[in-house]
């Protein structure tokens, strides 16, 4: 098998004495795959295995007046009908294990449902067929509620409240704000001085991961008072912790076996199957399997969340983007799952792989009566990249610049400061653009061919803005950041303190706009970099993204060491 490596790029940075990296190496599990012996979770056979199917909501949004399971329970072969009150701790948020987000989702809903397909009861029966028959015999008395399926409709006053933990349909970030903020420089001032203001609206749909093996788990009693659980999960310890929490069991009593996953792509982290299979096993004393069939996988399995982005760019005639403003709406569906985290990732990615001196983002994690969203390959990044790159083409068309040249002109380079206040390292957008142009036969100028990520960055481009415009917009009273009492109290206190400080702060004098030395555009006369003005110190920093006083030496606000930080040295 041949693999093409472009050793001409970054040649002086690569050690060529590695034994494995950069060379095709056989998978350790390949022999199992081609002989059909790889042990997927459902390849473990149990005598007397019971099968589980869920009773699901036919409505987007409804209150549960009552659930009548008596007819289903009388069906021969039905071993148990599980409802919400059977779940020891029937409220969870996946990220609560990190104390990030409030518990908002029941394993089996007993009060109301917030999406079509939400489970309200689980049948445990001798066969899958009997379980299906019994599902049809459960009578649920629904009080149908108005629903909302659009992110912007959902956050309007008077919209139906989807999620009990977040009545305004917006996740609360850090216990303080109803959205994730990014503030870097002064976007509004820069937009006023730009030659062009270019706006765009971008919408991405939910996407189902569609693994070949559907999600599922089998739980069985072990002789030592433990439960063994064979599972298709992508996050074995994540699922173990979630099961322990929902079932109020010591994790020492759970024996999880996984690692052979028939495709996941992010869709197998939600840990819905393990706790329910174990609960079925606990309540019957028998091995119990809970698996999605293909229809469940497509209709109920959590997809990549839909995103809507509004982008406003301030662009100079020469193609330099001086300001980029984002308003983003991430459709979490009915429950948080991992969406709040996806947005944190997304905020760190803005404004894309470009060095733009003024960046602003408000990103909302919105609850709607749609299937909850979860992880999928690059979630939090892919959707906004779709928006950004479409917008780059729109900017190129509007300003009349070749789209490759526009990207290279604004590309980040090693040593530049990124909007989330970390230095750009190992950048390669320019080289990617060059190779993409070459491979697609796109004619480029000599200027494009001469550019390099290794030069032209840093210096003034590596400095933080002299001033960042901050605000308290979207501040939430009584905010809580996590499910555990101590953490939320601390958050509440600091939130109040910040409000007081914000009120006390004098209004900031209009600060100078930041500009930066730039890569020379190919067809324009050389642009004289405006000197960075040493402005009088702006008003005391008060907002959540305001800069603390910095020493005069080169600022390096990076908080975390990068695992790839050592590559270029």
């Amino acid at each position, binding site marked *: *098998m041949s693999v093409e490596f472009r050793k001409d790029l970054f040649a002086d940075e690569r050690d060529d004495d590695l034994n494995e990296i950069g060379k*095709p190496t*056989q*998978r350790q*599990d*390949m*022999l*199992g*795959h*081609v*002989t*059909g*012996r*790889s042990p*997927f979770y*459902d*390849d473990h*056979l149990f005598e007397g295995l019971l099968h589980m199917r869920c009773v699901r909501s036919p409505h987007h949004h409804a209150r549960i007046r009552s659930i009548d399971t008596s007819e289903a329970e009388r069906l021969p072969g039905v071993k148990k009908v599980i409802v919400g009150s059977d779940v020891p701790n029937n409220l969870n948020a996946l990220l609560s294990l990190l104390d990030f987000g409030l518990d908002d989702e029941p394993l089996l809903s007993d009060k109301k449902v917030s999406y079509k397909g939400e489970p309200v009861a689980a049948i445990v029966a001798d066969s899958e*067929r009997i379980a299906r028959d019994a599902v049809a015999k459960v009578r649920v008395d629904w009080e149908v509620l108005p629903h909302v399926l659009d992110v912007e409709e959902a956050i309007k006053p008077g919209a139906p409240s989807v999620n009990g933990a977040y009545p305004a349909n917006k996740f609360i970030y850090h216990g303080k704000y109803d959205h994730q903020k990014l503030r870097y420089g002064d976007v509004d001032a820069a937009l006023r001085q730009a030659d062009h203001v270019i706006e765009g609206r971008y919408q991405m749909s939910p996407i189902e991961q*569609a*693994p*070949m*093996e*559907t999600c599922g788990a089998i739980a069985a009693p072990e002789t030592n008072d433990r439960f063994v659980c064979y599972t298709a999960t992508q996050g074995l310890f994540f699922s173990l912790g979630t099961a322990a929490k929902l079932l109020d069991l010591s994790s020492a009593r759970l024996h999880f076996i996984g690692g*052979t*996953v*028939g*495709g*996941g*792509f992010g869709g197998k982290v939600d840990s819905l199957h393990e706790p329910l299979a174990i609960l079925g096993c606990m309540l019957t004393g028998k091995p119990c399997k809970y698996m999605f*069939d*293909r229809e469940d996988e497509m209709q109920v399995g959590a997809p990549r969340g839909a995103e809507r982005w509004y982008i406003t760019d301030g662009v100079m005639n020469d193609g330099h983007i001086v300001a980029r403003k984002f308003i983003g709406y991430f459709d979490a569906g009915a429950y948080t799952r991992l969406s709040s985290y996806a947005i944190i990732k997304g905020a760190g990615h803005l404004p894309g792989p470009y060095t733009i001196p003024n960046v602003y983002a408000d990103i909302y994690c919105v609850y709607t009566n749609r299937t909850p969203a979860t992880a999928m390959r690059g979630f939090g990044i892919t959707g906004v990249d779709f928006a950004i790159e479409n917008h780059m083409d729109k900017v190129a068309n509007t300003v009349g610049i070749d789209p490759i040249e526009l990207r290279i002109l604004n590309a980040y380079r090693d040593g530049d400061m990124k909007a989330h206040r970390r230095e750009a390292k190992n950048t390669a957008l320019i080289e990617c653009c060059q190779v993409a142009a070459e491979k697609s036969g796109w004619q480029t100028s000599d200027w494009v061919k001469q550019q390099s990520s290794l030069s032209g960055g840093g210096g003034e481009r590596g400095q933080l803005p002299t001033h960042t415009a901050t605000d308290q917009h979207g501040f939430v009273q009584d905010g809580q950041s996590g499910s555990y009492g101590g953490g939320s109290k601390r958050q509440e206190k600091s939130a109040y303190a910040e409000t007081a400080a914000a009120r006390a702060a004098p209004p900031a004098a209009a600060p100078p706009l930041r500009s930066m030395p730039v890569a020379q555009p190919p067809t324009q006369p050389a642009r004289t970099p405006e000197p960075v003005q040493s402005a009088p110190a702006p008003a005391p920093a008060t907002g959540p993204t305001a800069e603390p006083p910095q020493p005069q030496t080169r600022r390096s606000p990076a908080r975390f060491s990068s695992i790839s930080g050592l590559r270029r040295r």
Partner: protein
Amino acid sequence: MAQKPVQFTLNGEDKAAFASDGQNLLDMLRRGVGDLSPKYGCGQGACGACTVLIDGEPCLSCLTLAETVDGKDVATTSGLSSGSGIHPLQDAFMRNFAAQCGYCTPGMLMAAKALLDRNPQPSRDDVVEAISGNLCRCTGYEPIINAVLEASRSGASQPNG
């Protein structure tokens, strides 16, 4: 529930099982006689992960009633290798990185086996056509197509290499 006795050969060995009403071949192979190589992917004939050969013809075992294989010859991926050796198709899949998660692989292999058994020197288009009923979500089809072509060149049409 009525149960029907079914006698068939599986990879050359005599097997007998009871098929319950409406039981499909996939379920009987996996739970009835313990051959776990065919996989459930969709249960509706869309993905090909359950592909087996019945009297040499590729069939979707999830859409085949178990009782209909009475007296027939069923072949699965479990029977591809003999002893310690592996079949040239398996070898070609390994060398061409034609599997990632491995879940579609047994079905792919049987579809490819059916092709090479009736057409030992297939064209690329023949291979594409032969595996067109089998979905793969991770590997991508190129390495699989290359593997089947490579196997055809190494004489995979000969039983067990």
